[in-house]
């Protein structure tokens, strides 16, 4: 460890115990938001203070950590959190989904299916799915306690009345274990089916709102909908321009001011893996060009 002034993984052991107790309770009541004494972290709220605390409480010296932000391993948020734990816990880090034991994520679930030895930690800005419909915390707690979820359908109704279909594209409400309605953090609804019956443990940490909730492995997660307007995952209707994937979630990248754009996988590890395996999209660099460049350099 190259920062001896810190305890292992930054937080002191008592704090980690407090967080672990909240995590255990959250696992025992799937989808229920457990309050916890969120600490100040050396990063601003909104940058994943909740996720970082959950990760810190989970990490052991043998763990391999992967951090993604919108699916990408190399954005500022992902890199700084990965470096933070490399420094304070000295754990191994990776960008490969299948090598990681703990994956902290902001706004995406990796494309590659997770396994039983992995934990997925979500960064959550607003844990309360009913918040924008019912501003009173006392009232939303009561609604959860009594399973009064008619209001959630009011939101979906409004979507259909206004747009003709359920236009909620992210933070799409789900019902966990046929009991609690939960906000899956702002993941695209494309990822909702991946949460259902997932072999990996899924933990959600909201630092500013001081809540932790969980989906234990192999738990039923159902996206709310209407009989005549069923839930549908949304995806741009195009293959990835770099790896040609037809079934991954895509980012739209504007390439010029003439309306040019390209669609690429938001999960960078998945996309790179496919390219390494020889898959090519319409805009990937032609192999002969790379070879020619190598020849001129070398």
């Amino acid at each position: 460890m190259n920062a001896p002034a810190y305890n292992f993984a930054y937080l002191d052991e008592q704090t980690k115990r407090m967080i672990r107790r909240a995590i255990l309770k959250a696992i025992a009541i799937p989808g229920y938001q457990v309050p916890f004494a969120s600490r100040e972290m050396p990063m601003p709220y909104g940058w994943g203070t909740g996720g970082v605390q959950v990760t810190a409480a989970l990490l052991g010296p043998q763990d391999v950590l992967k951090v993604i932000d919108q699916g990408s391993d190399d954005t500022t948020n992902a890199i700084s959190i990965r470096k933070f734990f490399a420094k304070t816990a000295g754990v191994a880090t990776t960008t490969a989904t299948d090598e990681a034991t703990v994956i902290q994520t902001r706004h995406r679930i990796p494309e590659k299916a997770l396994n039983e030895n992995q934990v997925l930690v979500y960064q959550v800005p607003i844990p309360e799915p009913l918040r924008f419909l019912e501003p009173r915390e006392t009232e939303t707690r009561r609604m959860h306690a009594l399973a009064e979820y008619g209001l959630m359908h009011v939101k979906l109704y409004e979507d259909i009345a206004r747009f003709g279909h359920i236009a909620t594209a992210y933070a799409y409400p789900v019902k966990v274990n046929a009991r609690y309605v939960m906000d899956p953090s702002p993941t695209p609804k494309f990822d909702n089916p991946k949460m259902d019956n997932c072999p990996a443990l899924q933990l959600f940490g909201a630092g500013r709102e001081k809540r932790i909730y969980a989906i234990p492995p192999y738990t039923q997660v159902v996206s709310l909908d209407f009989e005549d307007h069923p839930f549908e995952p949304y995806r741009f209707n195009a293959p990835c321009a770099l790896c040609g994937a037809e079934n991954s979630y895509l980012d739209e990248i504007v390439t010029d001011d003439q309306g040019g754009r390209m669609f690429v996988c938001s999960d960078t590890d998945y996309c790179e893996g496919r390219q390494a395996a020889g898959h090519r999209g319409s805009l990937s660099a032609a192999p002969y060009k790379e070879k020619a460049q190598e020849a001129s350099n070398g």
Partner: protein
Amino acid sequence: MADQNLVENDEPLLVAESLSKSFGRIAACRDVSFSLYPGEVLAIVGESGSGKSTLLQMLSGQLAPGSGHVSYRMRDGVTRDLSTLGEAERRFLFRTDWGFVHQDPAQGLRMAVSAGANVGERLMAVGWNHYGRIRDTASDWLTRVEIDTARIDDAPRTYSGGMRQRLQIARNLVTEPRLVFMDEPTGGLDVSVQARLLDLLRSLVAELHLAVIIVTHDLAVARLLSHRVMVMKGGRVIETGLTDQVLDDPREPYTQLLVSSILPP
């Protein structure tokens, strides 16, 4: 069937037994007892501060009585004391078999969501899960309260006062409640709008065989809508009887004063 209806109408729907409530030294409500039968409209009249609203809150289970009991005959025919109901049961009762029309529609409506969703909310709360059917029912109810169905997707923010009040009524009646509480439903509306609303209420009450407890300080509203009147003063019921009887031939000096203070038409 007819026999059963007869029996059902014979038993009171709601019974209040010596209800009292005081806030500190102020006795807001003292020893109020009455029975309400299915399809009956009871008006509670009195000036501001006479305890009408406190009484209404106790009757509708929103405020625990200081002493006394309120019992209600549930849809399964069993009469139960409201204080023995769990919170979940009470809230369920409140959004299915009961309605509550507030004086200020902003309290009873979700001002930011569309009229259709406002009417549909109760249906969704009891498990309706078919958008088309919810919308059809909502638009049917908007027609019944004389709101143009073209405005089904507009938020009540954009509605006039009278329309808001009619929307609030539709939102309450959509689950076909048997008992509706109304707290000054015509307060703050101008006279012609009041008249239309009263007309509408009168026909809906008759058509749906609703029992209504209506709190008002407007004796004209009581005369138009109610079968029975209770006059309150200083937290007590000072006079009660059939509406015509109380308003045409008031016995108590205070009721005489109330009746005589209506301007002649």
